[in-house]
């Protein structure tokens, strides 16, 4: 239906070939990450493979009778038989999603949006900075960077959260930290006695990161203020704004650029984003209430 070419004047290519109605998926598992965050692993109801996606893209997840929410895909590109989503319980729909027991059905439509441009990072140093729930949308990119390690220069990852118990993928982070050839720094806003890591902003970790600013690509994801501060710090260090990428978030209903809700300046975050290069969006990131 949505894949037909549109015949009348002024028409462009149709929606990214994806169905506009949710497709049933079965919850295989639900794992608690933190007090308000869970990770859902979904199997296609019809068996077989899920649609291909790019790291950074999102799906609209649907709870029958309740509604849809835009959630980034956070699984491994190579695991073709499942879809993984990390969901924070923030509103009615995400709350419902984070209570779906194994065996229940979740509707999925997508993938939508633009992804992290890994191709632009080949041969360069890669700096990844994540804040809070900004790590899940970056995880598929991290998997891919690690899998094809030899394509890239230095890999520096910085992840900040409110407190140690708000860190997601905790045991996976330990695996990454133990890997030679990449550095993974974690920092929190406040901590108690049991934390031996850093306390402070993600930007305070940048001086410890080693990369050649003129030959670096940066992927940033987290609250807008964190991305703005980090992008500014990177730019001060000499990374060109066109080499810095951010993932923006706005209210989404249709996910296909027709409902108008997700607009950010001239951009439809669902279609032109959520991944944008910083030089494309920086002027709007500093205007209040855009």
């Amino acid at each position, binding site marked *: 239906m949505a894949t037909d070419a549109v015949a009348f004047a002024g028409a462009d290519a149709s929606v990214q070939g994806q169905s506009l109605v949710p497709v049933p998926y079965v919850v295989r598992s639900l794992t608690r990450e933190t007090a308000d965050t869970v990770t859902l692993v979904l199997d296609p109801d019809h068996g077989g493979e899920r649609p291909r996606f790019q790291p950074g893209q999102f799906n609209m997840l649907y709870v029958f009778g309740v509604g849809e929410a835009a959630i980034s895909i956070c699984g491994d590109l190579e695991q073709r038989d499942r879809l993984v989503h990390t969901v924070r319980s923030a509103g009615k729909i995400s709350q419902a999603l984070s209570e779906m027991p194994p065996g229940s059905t979740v509707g999925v439509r997508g993938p939508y949006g633009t992804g992290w441009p890994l191709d632009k990072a080949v041969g360069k140093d890669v700096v990844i900075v994540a804040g809070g729930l900004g790590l899940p949308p970056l995880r598929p990119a991290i998997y891919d960077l690690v899998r094809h390690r030899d394509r890239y220069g230095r890999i520096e990852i910085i992840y900040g959260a409110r407190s140690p118990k708000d860190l997601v993928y905790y045991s996976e982070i330990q695996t990454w930290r133990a890997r030679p050839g990449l550095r993974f720094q974690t920092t929190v806003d406040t901590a108690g006695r049991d934390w031996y890591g850093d306390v402070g902003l993600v930007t305070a970790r940048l001086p410890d990161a080693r990369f050649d600013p003129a030959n670096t690509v940066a992927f940033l994801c987290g609250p807008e203020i964190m991305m703005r501060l980090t992008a500014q710090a990177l730019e001060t260090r000499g990374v060109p704004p066109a080499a810095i990428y951010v993932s923006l978030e706005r209210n989404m209903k249709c996910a*296909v650029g027709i409902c108008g809700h997700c607009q950010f300046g001239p951009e439809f975050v669902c279609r032109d984003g959520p991944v944008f290069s910083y030089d494309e969006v920086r002027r709007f990131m500093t205007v209040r209430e855009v």
Partner: protein
Amino acid sequence: MVGPTVRDGAIVYGEIREDSDLPAGWTDKQEAGKYRLERRTDKALFGYNVGPHGWKKYLFPSRERLWTGVRTGTSFAIEPEKDEGPPVAFLGVRACEMAAMDVSDKVFGKAGDPGYRERRRKALRIAVQCGQAGGTCFCVSMGSGPAVRAGHDLALTEILTPHRHYFLVEVGSAEGAAVLEGVPVSPAAPSDSASAEAIVAKTAASMGRAMDPVGLRDLLVNNPEHPRWEIVARRCLSCTNCTMACPTCFCNTTEEVPELSGEKVERWRRWDSCFNSGFSALHGTSVRASTKSRYRQWLTHKLGTWHDQFGMSGCVGCGRCITWCPVGIDLTEEVAAIRTPVASSQSAQAKA
């Protein structure tokens, strides 16, 4: 066939079954925040400008069911809605409305919306050349009128002389030609065409408003902190009338409508507005909480970033937003104020 008819003190679009449904002898007087009908001294059928409705409601209904879902055990099955409506003829489409449909074709085409495509395909457009300009019209400024030159199936110019009341008909398509079969027509004389052109020229010369569209995109995108936004925000009620009346506004929302039993659910789409408070809701608050930010979003989008998105302006100069704003906000006036260098407008508003 849908076309103009008098109802509730306005000329709106509704089903037309016979001649007497048309607003013969009526005209409209429009100004900022004002609309009223008046009697004409003749019996012109199309002697008015545009009413609160556009053709938007036929191509993009204000409420539309997208699909129906039913539970099947632990899973569900979804049946998309098929549009099975009959072909419709639009009678009395004005140049600005043709232009608005060009804009909507681009907007809905880019998103690949199948419902719009289908309804648009089934619409026969009988255009009417404007015989008068309204108090809030500025199609000439926007390059969208007053003459319909392309896209029509038929285009009518109503010509009234003391002795004759007739129409010059221009055929624009094979479908239009087919409609004319069985209608008593005779070839137009050069004087008929000349009369028609003269009417349109007179209309073009009597526009109620003007707005220079040159450089508008940059002007608005580059001035998010212009003091004028604060000024207009004090008047704006965020009532959404402008977006409802505007023929190119397309913002909409989706709703989940479950049956009580929980076994069946419908997904509906309905018109929304960037002026609504929940429109930009994110993480429990609105990104655009202030009226100022919403008005700025609407105008900057309509006249500015629409160019970035669709390669054209979102405004066709129909004037509906000016007429139907309860406090009479006039975007041509707002734009003129934003064009004024800040120093002089600041001193004007310093103690406002």
